């Protein structure tokens, strides 16, 4: 039987279109009724032939292009390490297969016990931005109706919540890109802040070509990233600020716009409110002062302002933000400053200019709209809004009082694990918090203190390894559903392959558990049935999907939300009006928060350390995705990027006697990371970079802080103070910074070596 499907890539929010086909010559190794690939037989043929071939498919976003991650994605379908049966952890700590009946029975008794002993909020759910809309929607419903808990949030809190909060307060609506991606093609000027698309979503780069040709690509990044390198040779400008000073930089650019008379006065008068306060808020950020704060020359700040204004009058100007400027304790204010700049120039809501934030995870957009967030109900409704609650109660057919109130945002949720009034029993879906959450050592300790941990995954990820019960679930090529890409366009994921027999979809798991827990309302394992309910649930909400159905998506129609029934959807938002009552966009005056004079956290951080601290920033490599749970298992990708490397400037390295390729330890009061150094002049001398895809001793998030933005609850990932030392392989560290507060890292031996020993 030849199978195949037009679908989209399993990884990032660009959701590149791809076609999966099963070559006639290849018989799928796993067919219904046949035995799943067992660990023993697979060990004989370590590199199984992929079950499917992947081909790029023409689509407005990727235009047939795929990156290495997409090309190699099929190799995980029959990967030898795939979990294909429920695994229960024994008293000896070893996971052993159990039947689905036993697995579900264990869960039900764990949930009932936690509820009886500690109340309904002792059960928590941690979701993911990679789940389909159907799964995300039903997961929120499952948490609130079947588990009766308010304690649900998801890993998108680490990515999108600051830009989302900023978008809501400025526009009354948050959709990552409020315009189709292809609109960028004609732009004369594109300002990209804290986003490295050349590595994170390579096919995106096609849409920057027009701006590069016009000399108008402006990249703000403390590193000369692959994206920043596009600005050389006349492509544009690279602004290389000190980490954590983006807000001041944006205020400086806005200052230049106002004081050089570049603002769009007509637009400001007709379409915005709050302009005067915004003007006052930037009056004290003249470019020379901002230069002293950021290290970006005043001339470049002014030039950026001029090019943005100039571009708006030509092919268009766009301002795009990414995690680099958003993942800070002032991330919401920084995104707001970017939006204010865009509003001054009259960009948002015009036909050929705009502001957008680049969503990261595969369904980072849809995943934040349908009830996975602690404070939201489906359709981007506020859980505290009585009308929203009444609407959902009606759709679900339950009394309104049955819907719990707001829960805890992700970082707080994780901090509560195992605490007396915290979560005792946790479900994790599509997330690998042991690697991806800030202050990862503390998160792992939290996971270990739970009474019961259930993880749904297709591999024994670092989080699954901690689980009492691991439930094997379907991969992208084995399931139907929808995702919403970074432009707010709803896409169909289609099944090309039958899943291994022991594997279930999360919809099935939730449906069974809901039955066993006597949950009210209806749950379904059929994606289209769930989507039909999602349509009703989202109807009238900000993210209204009520006019979208599978049939129209299967016809290839471009469905951008909001898409109320009877409408034609909304490729471009805000052309007529913004979503606030009155239709105007709102300037919110923001200013860098000063450090309280009574706090001396900088001194505390230095306890037990000597020498100069460096600023750690984190990010992605092209070959890996998120925590690397999938991509580290793809041979071609692991071969290209087998390990974490600390990028640091040769001048900083020389001061510590570190040569390219040396093992170094990177430490602070939260933990220690051990990996090789990679010397590069592409990074600022006081800044170091670690990719966050790697676990254990190479896990960057052992060093990051769980401090959060007060508005969005999003953590500070990008300005951790660390100390760097040369490490002697197999021995003690040089210097005096050994294992400060580090759990289980005393050797200084690189993680790669440890892992090899453990698995061989």
């Amino acid at each position, binding site marked *: 039987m030849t199978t195949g499907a037009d679908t989209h890539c399993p990884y990032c929010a660009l959701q590149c279109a791809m076609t999966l086909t099963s070559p006639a010559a290849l018989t799928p190794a796993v067919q219904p009724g046949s035995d799943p690939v067992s660990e023993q037989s697979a060990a004989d043929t370590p590199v199984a032939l992929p079950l499917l071939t992947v081909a790029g498919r023409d689509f407005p976003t990727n235009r047939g292009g795929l990156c290495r991650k997409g090309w190699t994605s099929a190799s995980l379908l029959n990967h030898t390490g795939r979990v294909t049966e429920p695994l229960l952890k024994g008293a000896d700590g070893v996971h052993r297969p159990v039947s689905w009946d036993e697995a579900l029975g264990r869960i039900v008794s764990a949930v009932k016990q936690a509820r009886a002993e500690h109340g309904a909020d002792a059960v928590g759910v941690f979701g993911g931005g990679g789940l389909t809309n159907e799964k995300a929607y039903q997961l929120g419903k499952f948490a609130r109706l079947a588990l009766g808990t308010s304690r649900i949030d998801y890993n998108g809190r680490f990515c999108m919540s600051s830009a989302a909060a900023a978008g809501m307060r400025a526009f009354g609506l948050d959709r990552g890109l409020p315009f189709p991606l292809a609109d960028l093609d004609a732009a004369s000027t594109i300002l990209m802040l804290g986003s490295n698309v050349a590595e994170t979503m390579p096919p995106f*780069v096609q849409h920057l070509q027009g701006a590069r040709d016009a000399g108008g690509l402006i990249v703000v990044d403390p590193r000369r990233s692959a994206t920043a390198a596009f600005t050389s040779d006349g492509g544009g400008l690279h602004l290389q600020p000190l980490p954590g000073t983006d807000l001041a930089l944006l205020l400086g650019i806005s200052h230049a716009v106002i004081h050089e008379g570049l603002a769009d006065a007509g637009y400001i008068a007709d379409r915005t409110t709050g302009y005067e306060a915004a003007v006052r808020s930037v*009056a004290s950020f003249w470019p020379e002062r901002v230069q002293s704060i950021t290290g970006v020359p005043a001339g470049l700040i002014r030039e950026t302002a001029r090019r943005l204004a100039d571009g708006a009058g030509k092919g268009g100007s766009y301002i795009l933000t990414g995690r680099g400027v958003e993942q800070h304790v002032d991330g919401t204010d920084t995104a707001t400053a970017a939006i204010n700049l865009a509003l001054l120039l009259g960009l948002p809501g015009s036909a050929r200019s705009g502001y957008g934030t680049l969503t990261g995870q595969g369904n980072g957009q849809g995943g934040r709209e349908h009830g996975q967030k602690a404070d939201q109900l489906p359709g981007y409704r506020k859980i505290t809004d009585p009308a929203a609650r009444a609407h959902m109660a009606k759709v679900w057919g339950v009394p309104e009082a049955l819907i719990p109130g707001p829960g805890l945002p992700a970082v707080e949720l994780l901090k509560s694990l195992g605490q007396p009034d915290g979560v005792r029993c946790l479900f994790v879906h599509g997330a690998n918090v042991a690697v991806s959450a800030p202050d990862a050592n503390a998160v792992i300790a939290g996971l270990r203190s739970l009474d019961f941990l259930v993880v749904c995954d297709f591999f024994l990820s670092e989080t699954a390894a901690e689980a009492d019960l691991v439930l094997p679930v379907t991969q992208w090529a084995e399931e139907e559903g929808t995702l919403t890409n970074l432009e707010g366009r709803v896409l169909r994921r289609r099944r090309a392959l039958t899943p291994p027999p022991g594997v279930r979809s999360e919809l099935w798991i939730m449906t069974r558990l809901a039955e066993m827990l006597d949950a009210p309302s209806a749950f379904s394992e059929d994606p289209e049935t769930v989507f039909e309910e999602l349509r009703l649930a989202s109807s009238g909400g900000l993210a209204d999907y009520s006019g979208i159905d599978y049939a129209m998506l299967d016809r290839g129609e471009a469905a951008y939300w909001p898409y109320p029934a009877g409408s034609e959807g909304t490729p471009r938002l805000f052309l007529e009006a913004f979503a606030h009552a009155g239709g105007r966009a709102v300037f919110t005056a923001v200013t860098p928060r000063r450090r309280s004079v009574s706090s001396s956290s900088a001194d505390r951080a230095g306890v037990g350390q000597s020498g100069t601290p460096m600023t750690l920033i984190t990010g992605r490599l*092209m*070959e890996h995705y998120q925590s690397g749970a999938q991509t580290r298992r793809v041979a071609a990708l692991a071969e290209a990027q087998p390990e974490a490397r600390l990028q640091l400037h040769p001048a900083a390295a020389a001061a510590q006697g570190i040569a390219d390729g040396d093992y170094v330890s990177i430490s602070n009061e939260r933990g220690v990371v051990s990996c090789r150094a990679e010397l590069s002049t592409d990074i600022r001398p006081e800044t170091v970079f670690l990719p966050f895809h790697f676990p254990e001793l190479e896990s960057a998030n052992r060093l990051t802080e769980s401090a959060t933005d007060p508005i969005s609850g999003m953590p500070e990932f990008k300005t951790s103070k660390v100390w760097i030392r040369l490490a002697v392989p197999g021995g003690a560290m040089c210097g005096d910074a050994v294992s400060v507060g580090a759990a289980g890292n005393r050797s200084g031996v690189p993680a790669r070596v440890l892992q090899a020993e453990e698995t061989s």
Partner: protein
Amino acid sequence: MTERIVVVGFGPVAARLIDELLPAVRSGIAHLTVIGDEPEAAYNRVLVADLGVGRTTPAALALADAAALVADGVDVRLGVRVRRVDRARQQVLLSDGTSPGYERLVFATGSRPVIPNLTGLNPDPAAPVLPPGVTALRDLRDASVLHSAVAGGKRVVVLGGGVLGLETALAAAEEGATVTVVHNGPHPLGRNIDRGGGSVLAASLRNCGVRVAGNARSVGVEHNAPDGGFSALLLDDGSAIDGDLLVLSCGVRPRTELAEGCGLSTAAGILVDHKLRAHHEPHIFAIGDCAEVRCPDPECVQCRTARGPSGLVGPGWRQAEWLADYLTLLASGASAEAEALPSLAAELPGVIVLKARGMNMAVAGDVSADPWDEEALTAGAVNGRARLQIAQWADPEHGRYVKMTTRAGVLEGLVSVGMPRTSAELVQLFERGAELPADRSLLLRLDGPDQAAAAGSADPGRTVCRCAGVSGTAIAAAASDGCGTVPEVSAATRAGTGCGGCHDDIKGIIEAHFQGAVA
């Protein structure tokens, strides 16, 4: 009980204090009165020169909104002067006839321009009245005088080679005025800059179209214009510099007369301790340009080396923030916590970054020593303290000059002219007190064209397609296997199947292969 706080002065520093006190006002624990003698609420004085040359608008300079403050419950008095402070009754007597009482009084009176002693000027230090065609550059009215001269393409003479004078001169020249800067000493910026930096600076000013008259001692002002206004600045060598407008930029002096009048101690400014309190007067504070932090304790190490008011706005803003915290704690009755608040850290020497579009210059700290000046370099090196070290780069032909004065690798002074990236990096290294890279030349190369160049394009083994991770070698191999077009190479190797940015490179490799075959 509501604590009554009266702020005298409504400039940028007062505005910051008021902003920070607003939560206490809104919560009702403090009642705030602010008295400004200008008719406008606070605006950004730093940008008055920009306004004077027509580059910005008064609205864009605003730092406070009087109406919004009133709505928040602040008593805002604009265009009102304080006649006298009655410390015994804790009252201020105002020109509007009222006399509000206070528990805490904050002087934020700022400074006023120094009017030089020249014949033809009649400098009354308390209320200077300048003849037509002569202006200082401090407030919005001064700016409008300058603006009409610049807009009319007039000849502007700037007296004073300080940073404000230079900025005014550069901006006015760029906007079309004919400008001469007159300063004494061998180069502009006097003691702030060293000889090398000053010389390159003067040359750069000339390149920007500003005439520079150095070593000039001015003695008088000539009024022969048709309207009886300014016509020339007279020098002591008998020469004259003709012009239509004379801008006085000879520094500022703290406004302390009100404080002196009520018996407070003053030196250059109003003397305050480390909690910004006037000496021996716990109800009165001073911040910003009018304040001089120097505590009454003669043993205080910090105060032994203290400088007078810096004339820069940054330190004033930090004082305002600190004082707001302190006053808020006092108002809320938490006097123990207020006293426990750590004192404000001593200010670093001020950083001067020239605000100009056509040229770039930054100066900070003490830069007087030269690399071979052994005596100056070792002077402070006692008790194990490291000696000063100097690294220097001079390229007068191209208008570039850098000096880094360091102790134990940390900047104590810097000069950077004509090197924007270097200047930006040095200034933030100075402000953070961070150690410089041992190879100081790194900091000189930031502006070099080599910094942005793509590396290694000649290496055949380099990765050509980053998206698919395909090397040049692999593409060349595909070409030798017969792939003659980009799509064929893509099909064989996946190179060029991601972002497509490498298509030209692939084409080049294919062409090189087939040319090689022909040759």
